């Protein structure tokens, strides 16, 4: 039996993977990022259809249910990605300022 949830998630996963691939074609992300994101989304799909697959990992970390480990992992990953985003934003802001400041001095009227 395929549940409605599974259908929704798999459609979303397929959508996400095509996005990742298009970004790669546009050269917005590099090969490493392509592989990383593809694996993440494939993992989501696998866990969805074979939830028991997470059990050995859960046992390894002494966590009760298999699905819990997937949730924990997602939260950690999200935190990490938000952090990286922040750092990137900070760097971009700095670069932007550098450009604006250079222009200002160059174009002094």
């Amino acid at each position, binding site marked *: 039996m395929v549940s409605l949830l599974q259908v929704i998630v798999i459609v979303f996963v397929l959508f996400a993977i095509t996005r990742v691939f298009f970004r790669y074609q546009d050269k917005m992300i590099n090969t490493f990022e392509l592989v990383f994101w593809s694996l993440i989304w494939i993992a989501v799909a696998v866990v969805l259809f074979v939830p028991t697959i997470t059990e050995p990992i859960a046992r390894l970390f002494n966590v009760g249910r298999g699905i819990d480990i997937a949730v924990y992992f997602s939260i950690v990953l999200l935190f990490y990605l938000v952090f990286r985003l922040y750092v990137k934003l900070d760097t971009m802001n700095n670069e932007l300022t550098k450009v604006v400041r250079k222009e200002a*001095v160059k174009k*002094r009227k």
Partner: protein
Amino acid sequence: MPKIFIVIPAYNEAESISQVIRGLRKEGYTNVVVVDDCSSDNTAETARKAGAAVLEHVINRGQGAALQTGTDYALEKGADIIVHFDADGQHDPKEIKDMMDPIKKGKVDVTLGSRFLRKGSNVPLLKRVVLKIGVIFTFFYSGILLTDTHNGFRALSSKAAGRIQINQDRMEHASEIIDQIKKKGIRYKEVPVTIRYTKYSRQKGQSALNSIKIAARLIWTKFLR
């Protein structure tokens, strides 16, 4: 005679800027640099008409970024002493002399204006509380205990100005400058100044609430950079 440059960061100060520039010229300061930060009023045009050299940021980058832009420009023009001065009329051009004096005498390389060194204070109560919290915050952040850490009135020798590099684009730059003074072992001194509080300046100035945001950003970047 040392070459003196007055650097004024300005954001939407068309109402006050020309009077500020005229006040400076009257005291004999002819090298006035206004850094307009993409104001939505005609600050830049007004400042130019009043006789200042105007540098324009094409998008708003904040007071810290503007100070660095003006400082870079002044150094390029061969400044010996650079004075940071506000555009909203809160600073007194007559006090620039006192600010530069210790630098001219070679005693220090940076002077920091303080509104709390003279007896009796005209600072509004809430502002005073916020500023004192800023002082304590800066003490823990940089290890320097001053009487007034968030005062935009400063004078720097060209040597010091070249060594201090402001990376905090917005209001966090005030603590950052003090932080660098400490880290780089630059000789400094606080000089008493008077800050004028008018209806105009109080309406436009930094709110107490905003200072919480400033502190949070400083802590964040301390861990990040």
